[in-house]
């Protein structure tokens, strides 16, 4: 039975509690504001530096002013060139990456669970990762010429080792305690795969997809630069050959915006949805 003094004690405890809570919230808000201020400051500084350099430091064709670039970009978007060429590149990436993912996962799982296969593949996977993509592109171009399949193969070949390596890392990090638990309870292989391994591997798979995808962009673009007749890379090469810095920079920036969009919006959504079981880490 609480006495009045205890009740008073409780109330002041609650008040103190909510005071602390409010302080914490205020701190969070201040932190977020600071973050945005400094972020914008960074952008402002960068653009200012750019404008300054392009006006006073170097000649216009070496570094065009920001506005020139903006104008160029607007033109590219409005004439539909953007959609046409991005679409072309995207298609090749999608197919090539799908192949890389399927083959890479299979090999990665095999390598992670079986020492013999790991020995068999590991040198090649390492080599494929460290060899500059240019090499694969040159060989692909030599074999397939300007055909569509060239970039697809190049993307598949360069993306594959990233997927495989990340999956091997995942399998090797396998949660022994959970695996033992499943084993002790005689859980079927299928259920083990479905409820233990795959959820556990999910973050590794996502990392694999992230890396593999970013590599895919680069390689597809590179193939187009070297020997393509459509796509972002092709446009970049054209601008490069005509020494149009404004044009090339515009395409580069547009390429960026698109890659960021894919990464932030598409991939991040999936990742957030997948990991809602994670306990919140409160600051």
């Amino acid at each position, binding site marked *: 039975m609480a006495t009045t003094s205890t009740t008073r004690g409780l109330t002041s405890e609650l008040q103190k509690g909510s005071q602390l809570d409010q302080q914490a919230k205020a701190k969070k808000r201040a932190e977020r504001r600071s973050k945005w201020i400094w*972020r914008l400051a*960074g952008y402002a500084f960068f653009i200012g530096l750019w404008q300054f350099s392009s006006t006073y430091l170097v000649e216009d064709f070496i570094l065009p002013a920001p506005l020139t670039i903006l104008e160029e970009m607007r033109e590219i978007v409005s004439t539909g060139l953007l959609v046409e060429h991005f679409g072309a590149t995207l298609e090749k990436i999608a197919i090539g990456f799908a192949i890389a993912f399927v083959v890479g996962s299979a090999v990665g799982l095999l390598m992670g*669970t079986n020492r013999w296969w*790991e*020995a068999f593949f590991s040198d090649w996977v390492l*080599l494929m990762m*460290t060899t500059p993509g240019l090499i694969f592109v040159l060989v692909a171009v*030599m074999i397939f010429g300007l055909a569509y399949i060239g970039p697809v193969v190049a993307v598949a070949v360069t993306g594959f080792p990233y997927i495989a390596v990340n999956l091997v890392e995942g399998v090797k990090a396998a949660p022994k305690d959970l695996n033992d638990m499943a084993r002790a309870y005689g859980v079927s292989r299928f259920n083990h795969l479905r409820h233990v391994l795959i959820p556990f591997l999910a973050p590794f798979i996502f990392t694999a997809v992230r890396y593999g995808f970013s590599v895919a962009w*680069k390689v597809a673009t*590179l193939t187009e630069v070297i020997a393509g007749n459509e796509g972002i890379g092709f446009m970049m090469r054209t601008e490069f050959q005509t020494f149009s810095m404004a044009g090339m920079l515009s395409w580069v920036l547009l390429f960026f915006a698109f890659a960021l969009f894919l990464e932030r919006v598409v991939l991040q959504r999936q990742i957030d949805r997948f990991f809602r079981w994670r306990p919140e880490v409160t600051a």
Partner: protein
Amino acid sequence: MSSTAAVARRPLGLSAGLRRFWLNPRTARALSLVAFVGGWQLIIPFLPTELIPTPIEVGEFMWAELRTDTLAPQTVYQAFATSLRRLVTGFGIALLIGTPIGLLMGLFKRVDYFLHDFVVVGLAMPSLVWALLAAMWFGFVEQSSIITVVLASVTFVIINVAEGVRAVPKDLVDMGKAYGASDLHRVRHIVFPSLMPFFFASLRYGLANGWKGLVLAEVYASTSGAGWTIRYWYDAHRAQGVIGYALFFMIFALLVERLVFGRLSRWVFRWRPSAGEQRDTRPHGGAGGDVILPESADADS
């Protein structure tokens, strides 16, 4: 392995020896080489072009190159030496520039907010773009290649140093303080070693990206080096040259990986217990066995 009445089995005679040969990982590696060369030879008639040389033709080319008998302006040794020199110079500069920036970013949140998005962009930027930009800005000079390396690798240095600073285990630092260790002592024995894995990551990714950028820069804006030489062979329509050099690139990468990274990381990380050191003595030999999934066949036996 069923827990009912498990008894040790003795290894059998000759067939066990043969079995052990096939199951040995070293055999696997040798076999993969055989599979590669064999696959290559077999696939040639199926390719849409007649330009692809056989393994033997490429082998001859590579052998000639190794004897410095070449038509290219540089021997394979000179070409790779040039490229390596540029890589090391460029990466050294990247380390000089990137480390202080990374330290600032890791230590001060404001600097992090200021620079964060640019670092993200820098990481994602294809090295191709750096190569083209450097080529356009500096033309056909040595600097283009080196600057490409700097641009391609500096963000990796920055982000790994920043991550490393943020990840310094606070409890160890506090322990140092509690025992009265001086600042310098703490930095040397706690901060520095715990930075090592990140430093290594920066080395690995930074060098890899720098290397890729360098090769491209040599293709577009240089007159020497390994990247330029492979282009030389490409322009001359000599497929043996292109594929031969591609293989040289791979061998180079393997050498660097084994000699430099392998040795270095083993020495730096010698305090780590190796994963999987404890192998238990199962009665059956198990080089080809599954390591992860439960052998559910036994669950009902």
